[in-house]
């Protein structure tokens, strides 16, 4: 068990900078998820922690020990790879025992640890099989078992769920989460899937172009995104964005000058940003109001997606495609006219130029 400190880390491949300058503190026993689009540097960062990639400059500490230049073999970390990377020529048992044998652990203790981990992951029945005789989900468990037996300081996961089908992914996701509560070891998990990030993390690191966009709990990242990128990346369907401006004292869509129902506080923030901003509203934060209410936004439903628990409706507002999540009991129809009112305490305003949130 150990905390991880990344201080002013820079990573370049030749002239190409992946991570320009990154500092990050991961607490002991914390489950942190790195999330971001492909190429954001999240996997590189994980591989740097693992010791599989050298650091260009900056400092990396695991526990209290500076590990720059310490080979992966001596970092006491365990990693679960995207393709599982099981040793194809070894039985499941030997795959799990391998690292312990390398450390010269006595056979009975190895056996006890392997069997305990196998029981925890429900893979006792496959211990004598070779990896190629296992299904994807079973291989995934073996890969986790190989990490668990080590009882390492830090667990690293490199998109371990991306090769599983949707149903299995949800199941394993929950299992990893409950495992993390059981093991109480520092865990760093890389994914491009914001749902995995939201459901598993104690804290989420949202990365773009090697820069930390926000580092906070899932709730805060969802409710108070630091900028437009985070707001758009976290949440599904994605947040709706509309350029808005102040016209006199009233807020209006920049596109067509139609009024935007914003309260006084929001208008004050807008005024602070020289009267121009991007308004962000999550699909679940529209209220449907009956009839025509003065301040509500009138829309015409273009498409209906029933999800069972909710229904998504697609429409255009001020020349921008937008989505709202509504109660299925409404039974919305294509072509139907509705009036939508953004929940005043749930709207977000971002600087039109920088994308930073306006507070």
């Amino acid at each position, binding site marked *: 068990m150990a905390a991880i400190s990344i201080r002013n880390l820079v990573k370049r491949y030749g002239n190409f900078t992946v991570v320009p300058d990154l500092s990050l503190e991961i607490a002991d026993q914390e489950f942190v998820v790195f999330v971001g689009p492909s190429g954001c540097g999240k996997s590189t960062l994980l591989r740097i922690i693992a010791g599989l990639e050298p650091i260009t400059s900056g400092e990396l500490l695991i526990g209290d020990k500076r590990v720059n230049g310490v080979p992966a073999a001596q970092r006491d970390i365990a990693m679960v790879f995207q393709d599982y990377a099981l040793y*194809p020529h070894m039985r499941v048992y030997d795959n799990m025992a391998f*690292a312990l044998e390398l450390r010269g652990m006595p056979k009975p203790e190895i056996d006890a640890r392997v069997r305990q981990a196998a029981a925890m992951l429900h893979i006792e029945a496959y211990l004598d099989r070779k990896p190629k005789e296992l299904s994807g989900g079973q291989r995934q468990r073996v890969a986790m078992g190989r990490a668990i037996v*080590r009882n390492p300081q830090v667990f690293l996961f490199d998109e371990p769920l991306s090769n599983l089908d949707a149903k299995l992914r949800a199941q394993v996701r929950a299992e990893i989460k409950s495992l993390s509560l059981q093991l109480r070891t520092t865990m760093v998990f890389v994914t491009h899937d914001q749902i995995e990030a939201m459901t598993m993390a104690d804290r989420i690191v949202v990365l773009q172009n090697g820069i930390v966009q926000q580092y906070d709990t899932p709730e805060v990242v969802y409710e108070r995104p630091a900028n437009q990128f985070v707001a758009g990346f976290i949440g599904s369907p994605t947040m709706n964005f509309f350029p808005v401006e102040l016209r006199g004292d009233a807020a209006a869509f920049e596109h067509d000058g139609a009024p935007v129902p914003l309260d006084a506080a929001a208008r004050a923030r807008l005024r602070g940003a020289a009267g121009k901003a991007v308004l962000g509203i999550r699909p679940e934060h529209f209220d449907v109001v009956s009839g025509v209410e003065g301040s509500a936004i009138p829309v015409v439903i273009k498409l209906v997606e029933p999800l069972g628990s909710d229904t998504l409706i697609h429409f255009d507002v001020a020349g921008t495609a937008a989505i709202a999540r509504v109660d299925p009991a409404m039974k919305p129809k294509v072509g139907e006219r509705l009036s939508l009112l953004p929940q005043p305490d749930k709207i977000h305003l971002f600087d039109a130029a920088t994308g930073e949130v306006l507070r």
Partner: protein
Amino acid sequence: MDHTPLSESWIKRINVLQLVLAGILIMSPTAWMVLSSFKPSFEVTAYPPTLIFSPTVENYSQLMETTPFFSYAINSMIVTLGSAGLGLLFGIPAAFAVSWTRISWPAVLTLAARMAPGTLFLLPWYMMFREVGMIGSYAALILSHAVITLPIVIWVLLPSFDNIPRSIFEAAQVDGCSVTRILWKIAMPLVGSGIAVAAILSFVFSWNYFLFALVLSNGDSKTLIAAAFNFVGEGSTQWGALMAAATLIALPPLVLAAIVQRWLVSGLTLGAVKG
């Protein structure tokens, strides 16, 4: 459209014809050699060649009586196994290092050495080995034949190592493996068929290599193939015995080639079916 089956059947016929021609081209000298070795000595050089004859092992017994065939065979075995072993000993780590570091020029260099004519090495080697009194020693022959075996081992194994997913090596690193251990415990077991192919090809090429043994050996350390060259023109050429010698010399490579062809195919497809 109805002429298509016709042209397809013609393609088949042409294919068969090609195979037959290639077969004749490759097999006829071998068949000639093997058949001649079992002919009575007066029929070996008969013209036109006799196709029906009463087979005899007379040539073989003559070969054994008049030449130290077995001691040459042992020489060949020592040199071949030694150089194949040496090639594997250095070639396996070399191929792994090239695959691991992705620095390929050492491999290219060995290939260039292999492609250069043997005569290029021959003269300097002769001088060097003579200087240190190694002419005629097994060591000189084994070392010189390593020039044949080392590139074979490296180039057969390089794609095999490259085919192992990188993450398996990384997993081993994270598990606490040193690079040497990764080679020994992970990489080598995964390229087993490649190593077998490399070993057998090394054996065959070293066994068949003629030039170095001709110059760098002496009467006692001559390999079979170099010795067989001397059967020609020692007094009167015994064609029958020579054919018998050639047949026996060709036997081990032919047998090994037959074995390797199966592994060669499986060795090449191994990377495609990832566990």
